[in-house]
């Protein structure tokens, strides 16, 4: 049976070139960057080289504006809590959106319990932030605006430059969760007026357990981890050297290959979307038709449920994700799908295809060959399917 993995958003393989770059730092160059001897120097040099690469990826002015963390979730925690705690005397109001990654949503909920006020700005049907509502939400207590660059589930890319301008005009710190977007679309923190930007390594074929936060020089932020004062005092704890080296290599490759790989993936994405909408009745695209990540297709099928779609596809060698409640730990459908205005029963029938390096045109053909049958079989089982669709 053909194997077609289209769940890159959930997990992806390490690039073998990244692995090669990491290898020496496990057994030979195992020094601690804080040591003054030669082993320490080797480690320190490696960390700084990676810092330089990450700075280049997001067009930061100085490498020192990059802080390494344990991943996207920690970067989001450091950014949002760090700004909130440090700027409390200025104000207690934070603005974010209804479709942020669950880490941002839960950090905001945590801060609400500590007396911060949070406005969750709505999005339109295609998942684009309502700029007018965002503008209206800003008040003299607002200390932070946090908006994701692109949504990993529905793929929609936000008008970041516009929001950056708005934040700057109002002298509010602007944080962007770019975990789903970094390495896939070009990011320029200076031009887009971004003060803080979260990225993670494992969304770019790098190792899991390492990420970074861009902190624009002069941005007031408080550390959330206390210890030996590594990473300019903002992220204590001995550095994950192999991980940081791996992230550096992954970032370098992502930047080099972004344009060609992005074009290739967007072609596969558009073929998949068009093919599914043509072949399957009562199927719909979730998210924005054009302003979307090159590797993301989120499709919805009426009358059936996502987890059974995943299982049916898995039996045919195809791996994808779903926003259905039945696949979540909380038994609630995806907050993103509800925020774009889908009813619960519509959200249940959604599938997320996230493609990557190993996917080919033949893979898309295979999905287009197998998916209609899986949908048809489940619809034949469903009491919700209209009779005329079963003929």
């Amino acid at each position: 049976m053909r194997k077609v993995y289209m769940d890159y958003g959930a997990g992806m393989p390490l690039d073998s070139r990244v692995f090669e770059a990491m290898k020496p730092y496990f057994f030979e160059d195992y020094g601690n960057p804080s040591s003054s001897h030669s082993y320490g120097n080797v480690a320190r040099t490696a960390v700084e080289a990676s810092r330089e690469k990450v700075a280049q990826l997001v067009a930061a002015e100085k490498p020192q504006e990059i802080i390494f963390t344990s991943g996207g979730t920690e970067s989001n925690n450091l950014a949002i809590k760090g700004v909130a705690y440090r700027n409390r005397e200025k104000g207690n109001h934070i603005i974010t959106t209804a479709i942020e990654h669950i880490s941002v949503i839960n950090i905001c909920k945590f801060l609400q319990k500590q007396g911060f006020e949070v406005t969750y700005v709505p999005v339109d049907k295609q998942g684009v932030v309502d700029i007018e509502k965002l503008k209206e939400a800003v008040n003299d207590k607002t200390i932070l605006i946090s908006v994701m660059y692109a949504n990993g589930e529905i793929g929609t890319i936000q008008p970041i430059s516009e929001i950056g301008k708005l934040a700057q005009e109002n002298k509010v710190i602007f944080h962007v969760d770019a975990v789903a977007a970094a390495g896939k679309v070009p990011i320029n923190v200076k031009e887009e007026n971004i003060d803080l930007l979260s990225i993670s390594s494992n969304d770019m074929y790098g190792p899991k357990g390492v990420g970074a936060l861009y902190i624009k020089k002069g941005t007031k932020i408080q550390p959330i981890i206390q210890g030996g004062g590594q990473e300019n005092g903002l992220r204590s704890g001995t550095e994950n050297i192999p991980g940081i080296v791996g992230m550096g290599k992954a970032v370098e490759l992502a930047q080099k290959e972004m344009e060609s790989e992005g074009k290739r993936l967007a072609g596969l994405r558009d073929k998949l979307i068009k093919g599914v909408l043509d072949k399957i009745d009562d199927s719909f695209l979730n998210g924005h038709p054009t302003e979307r990540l090159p590797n993301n297709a989120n499709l919805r099928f009426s009358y059936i449920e996502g987890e059974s779609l995943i299982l049916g596809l898995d039996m045919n060698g195809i791996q994808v994700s779903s926003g259905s409640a039945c696949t979540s730990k909380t038994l609630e459908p995806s907050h993103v799908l509800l925020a774009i205005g889908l009813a619960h029963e519509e959200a249940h029938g959604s599938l997320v295809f996230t493609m990557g390096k190993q996917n080919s045109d033949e893979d898309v053909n295979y999905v287009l060959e197998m998916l209609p049958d899986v949908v048809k079989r489940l619809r034949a089982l469903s009491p919700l399917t209209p009779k005329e669709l079963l003929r």
Partner: protein
Amino acid sequence: MYSEKVMDHFMKPRNVGEIPDADGVGTVGNPVCGDLMTMYIKVKDNKLVDIKFKTFGCGAAIATSSMTTELAMGKTIEEAMKITRADVAKNLGGLPPIKMHCSNLAADALHEAIKDYQKKKESKK
């Protein structure tokens, strides 16, 4: 995550469909929650001679529906009323804990169908 038995019933569900002249029909669940199932029964001499189902839901919802029809087929009304959610799960080789309550509704749908049959019989008297 699921046992082989669950996957078998998910891939090859038994007794799928509707019975147009059913003696009893029972529906439980709600599409908003992600699970909805309807059971149709045919009764002869106090025994379930035919059972069919239609289910909207996850893998567990479909497998438990299929297993319930298998467990109840040929049983008397009284025996079928004694089939529990736990029996269905046990015969499937177990279910993930999170699925025990939300998706294991098929026994309830069967009981609703039997109650519907009994009510109809009562009103005919």
